[in-house]
């Protein structure tokens, strides 16, 4: 395994054995999506259609009234008034990283772990990228709750690290928006080195034989 998403990193961080079972040995039972996940997906989809300029009236009118209400409430937010500022929607990303990172601070530790330098990849999907006044804002729609400690949330770490690489920019932030509650919080890019070390330390939990 060489490619990690926020979810797989969280799983690896939480319990290595469970991670190996689930993502490497594929020993996990497929569970059906629950109603709340499905609703989240639908709302994500609709926002994306909207951002990309599709006519969503027909689908919107067929939605359940509570969902439609949330969608309308969301789309009436200030940011959607400047639809053109959304430069990407539902955008997948793939960033290649080397355990021997650019300033060399983690090289020694890494070598102790694997005996050699290794590459890994970070992947995911940005719900939307908003660009305004020289700042890139990665929007992440949450169905209900936004992270309790957004500064330290692994998603912030991974997304800001990758975002900075993708847009070659430091003026970048991630904004979590709760669709149901209307709350939002924003985290600005801070320390690339710390981000990278946090990610690498999680990956190092995986026994080297599984790193390909």
């Amino acid at each position: 395994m060489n490619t990690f998403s926020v979810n797989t990193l969280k799983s690896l961080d939480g319990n290595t054995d469970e991670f190996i079972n689930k993502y490497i040995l594929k020993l996990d039972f497929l569970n059906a999506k629950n109603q709340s996940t499905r609703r989240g997906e639908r709302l994500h989809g609709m926002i994306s259609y909207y951002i990309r300029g599709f006519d969503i009236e027909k689908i919107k009118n067929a939605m359940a009234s509570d969902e439609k209400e949330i969608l309308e409430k969301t789309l009436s937010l200030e940011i959607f008034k400047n639809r053109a500022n959304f430069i990407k929607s539902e955008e997948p990303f793939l960033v290649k990283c080397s355990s021997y990172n650019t300033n060399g601070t983690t090289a020694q530790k890494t070598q102790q772990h694997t005996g050699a330098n290794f590459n890994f990849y970070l992947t995911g999907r940005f719900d939307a990228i908003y660009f305004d006044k020289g700042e890139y804002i990665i929007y992440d729609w949450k169905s209900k709750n936004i992270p309790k400690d957004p500064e330290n949330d692994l998603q912030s770490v991974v997304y800001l690290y990758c975002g900075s690489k993708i847009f070659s920019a430091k003026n970048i932030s991630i904004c979590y928006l709760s669709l149901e509650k209307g709350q939002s919080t924003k985290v600005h890019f801070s320390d690339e080195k710390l981000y990278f070390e946090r990610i690498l330390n999680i990956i190092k939990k995986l026994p080297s034989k599984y790193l390909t």
Partner: protein
Amino acid sequence: MIFYSTINSNKTDILIEKYFELVKSGVKPEEILVLVQNGRKKKKFVEKLKNKAPVGNIGNINVFSFFALARNFLERNFVSAENMIKDPNSPVFAHLCGLEVSQYIFKNCIKEIEFKGYNSKVNLLHQLLRRYSLIVQNALCNDEIKKREKILKEAYAKEARDAIKLYKLKTLEYRAFDYLRQVNIFEYLYKNIKNPYRYIILDDADEITPAVFEYLKYIKSDIKEFIVAQDPLGSSRLGYLSAAIVDFEKFLGQKPLDLREDSEKSKRAFKIFNAVKNNLQLSDENIIVKSFIRRDEMIFDTVEEIKKLIDNGTKPSQIAVVTPITDDYLRFCFKKIKQDVFFLSGSEKLNQNPLVGAIIEILKLANIDDMFLSPFILKSLALEILKLSPDEAITLTQKYTEANYCRKKLIKEFLLEFDNDKAKDFLHFIEAIKNEPLSVQLFEICTKYIKKTPQNQNSILKLNKLAKQINDFEEVFTSHFKKLQLIEQLENTIISENPLSEDEIPESSIIVASAQKLIDSEIDTKYLFLLDCSSSEHIKQDIGMLYNSWVFQKSWNKSEFEPDDNIKLTQDRTARILYKLALCASEKIYINSSIYDTLGIENYGGIDKYFKSAKSLNTSAPKKIIPRDDQKPVLDYKSGKMAVSAVAGSGKTTIMLALILKLLEGSVIENIKSENIFVLTFMESAARNFRERIKQNYPDMVELPQISTIHGLALKILKENNNYTFVNLDNDFEITDENKRREIIASAVVNAGLEYDKTELYERAISDFKNSSCTDIKKVKSPSFKRIFSSYDAVMKENNLLDYDDLLIFALRLLKTNREVRLHYQNLAKIIIEDEAQDSSPKQQELITILGEKHGNIIRCGDVNQAITATFSNSDVKGFKKFIRENKNVEMNKSQRCGVKIIDFANKTIDEAFSFAPEAFLNIKMHPVEGKNPSNSDGVELKLFEKQIEEKKFIAETIRKIKAQNREKSIGILLRSNWQITQWANFFEEENIKVEKNIDTLNNNVVFKTVLAIFNFINDTKNIKNIKNTLEVLLEMPRYKSEIAILSEIEQNDFMSDNFSKYSLWWDLRYFLLKSTTNPLELIFEIGDYYFKNTLEFANVSMVYSIAQKIYQTQKTFEDMLFRMNEIANRLNKSTKFFTKEDSTAGAVRIMTLHKAKGDEFDFVFIPELTSENMGLKIEDIKLKKNTEFIENLKPEPKDAQTLKQEILEENYRLLYVGITRAKTKLYLSCAKTYKMYKKEKSYKPCEIFVKEGSYEHI
């Protein structure tokens, strides 16, 4: 840029280099579309791309397989399609589901459309899906479809169109789109959405589908550069899989670069391509060609070769096996390699996996309150799921078996009363989940009962496949489907894609795959074994009634479709497939084939004909036969029609074989090849005998002459080159075996209000009616026959079944109505040799006449005096008599088989018959061969006894005497009817005389008998009589010889107690009993392998498996299957062609019917019970059965009773003659004056030969 490359060129590296060149020049990754053939190649491509990329942002890469491109479009842009749909209900996303959902929808659509004259439940859906697939993949518009309907003169075109239209509407309604429907909508989307791509990198361009090419054509003007990798000899997916051979040079106006590597491997692949394309035979020192007689021999040889390679240091991953037939038999045999073997293809049902099977049963339990469970399944659940101890599981199962006798006890009630905590907990659990959706139920069951261990990995993958399907259904239909119906459908789901995703191909296993799978996955190996090369399955011919893979190609531009088109196109595809396969192996390629398939049916039409061994395996010249004077004219045959009248023991088989070998040498008929020699035998065993003897003479011969029974030939004519389509047969037609046929007729008989025991009568009547000159059912007078026949006919049609009579009827119809097919076979049949011509039916004779019309070389051999099948089959001796009269007749009248006195007696029988039945014989007398016949003093003895028991005792005593003098002497006891065999066999058993019953019952085969005995034990472990029967069967095996005492102990102790642990037989039975599986068929291979390892009998295991499998398909539970197996065990069965040893054990006492004895010989022959009833030799002794008259009256011109009697009388004489001429040194003919019938002593008149005073000894 276009470049030619093969899978061995570093084409991916070149393409990736190009990719980065573009990116470096400022092109954004999202502007580049990379298209590859499939998911596995995509994964490989992406991994290489990631590897090659510099650290940092790689970007949004768009690498898609041909199919995933459409899916991606739909996922991102569904709203655009949705806005076009009129239905106001509107989901946010489409349901991108698996084929199971669309099959379910299609199935319901078909119900609304009547395909007049064609509504095969089995195949209609399959055929329509294939048609639809071809239409979609070839991006055919309505006009193109209509054009093709005309070319094919399709009878069901409109219905097919309506069905597909309805299906498309319904899928739209549900927004349920499988991969084909996705491609369908893709076309709409790309025409209505702005194209995001500027550069196209196209790998595997030779496998591109027209649908994808249409897309490329559409966006061509937007594209700045195309980079295309193509193998000009590739396109292995031509035909049904719809690869298009695209001229990219023309499309892009660029010259291709040839970057194909110049390796030995490539050269060999190219040679193979040429050989196949031009119908040549290739010989190469790195291509090892081996041909075997039986399939098991071929498989075991492969297994041994693989073991050797591994012992010599070859890694498993360097070995691949390709076969179109990945059946359970192959899987089982490959377990013996003791290495990881990964089956990359081969469809299987989900519930074939024991854990999945068990979970499905629990799902049923959760959703059905009043359920009876098969005790066999209960045992499996107890062991596998509840983890009860073996003893607990056995007790539970046995108690339920007893409680549930005659389905009296519901399983839930039983478990509630059964004192076991785990069972109770299980009951509470299924009660708690019963109201949940199926997907939740499945998840809960798995979480509670399945351990997430690597051992369970395969099962978990399959369970997730099941979960995926359930999720699909729940998403599409929400709750508008019945849970139980869905469980049933899913239970029978066949995973055609195995593995479920390309990610799962392990890197350290031997891969067993179909050709296409190996090619598609680009498996790189050193040693490639191609198995079953003689099977026509290697050359897939995807043509059915409602789809034609060739005409439905986008590129089809002819106005007609001729059989030759199919042959040529298929050959082209085969060349491409074999070429690509050859590119997968760098060292050796093994071409392995066998004369017979697993079921003992002859293989033909494979790919072995393109290969020849580089070094001859056996060059010894065939043994020359020096013919006698009376045989010589046969070997001197030059051309034309010739009859050979051969008396019993005249060496007819030997001389015919010599003639075939001479013909094969090519000195008789010019330019003759083995395929030009047609040999027809009466029995399959005779055909096997010929084939095997030719193979012994020419071990390297790949294609044997066409040797078969008439039904075998008819089947071949129908199947070859998809000829069946010309007589409106569907390609998946199946031949009913006699068990299934009997079942269908029995049900028709009972439904017509008649007694079940009338079944046999109607079996015969239906066959006779089909073979008669008038087959218009309306003209038949009998209302009961009309009803039963119509009902039988309807069931056969609905299930796409043919019986043996149909085979012949359809083959004849085909030859008569289709000139091209007729000419093909007439050209092919340069000579036809018919064995046992006296038993030939009018239809068989008609077929021979048609086939022989062009070359006129027909040799018919037989003995009119041995025609003994006319009264119970469709054979007609008159035809052969006429042939003898009208053509040159060679009389082979010398026989060295019988002693002179026996010859005299046989000849005397011919003379005496003239008084009572002048038409019985032709006056061809047997003559001894000087100095060769057995010498004996008292050749024939006629014995007349007062009582039956005296006759029996006399024979037993005489056998003892013979054996005391010489144990090696063979003895035959020949009887009139099958039922007498059992009676006499029982008597001999009481007398401690070991006999071999030569009877065509399943239970007479040791494998069937053993499997049945063990199954009976598993079914009931308490019933002493049942256990005793099982033990008796198994104790016959030498391995249990010393354990006979077990029989006496079972009366005293519970058989399941430890008291028996000193017996290995007990442990073995316990092992099979505790083998935890929900699929009883698996046990058959286990039993077979344990008892019959590496023997000829092991080859029969797969036949027993096949019998059980057919029953299991309809009976569904182990117990019901077993009931049927017991029912048919002792019935005559001719459709299963068990492999048998050519010669019986030396010195055996064999017991059989007179009919069955034909072709055999014995030192001593006994023909007892020759009453006038058994062997009427005077017209007044012949009594017509009611059935005979009934059947006769169905015919357009029925014979009168007197004529029928006369025919029976004539045949009786010939039957007696056959019996007499089986004896070499001594013949005993006997009769008693009284016999016990139904426990009553009854007087009988001895038959005519005992009438003359003095001709017999009265005892």
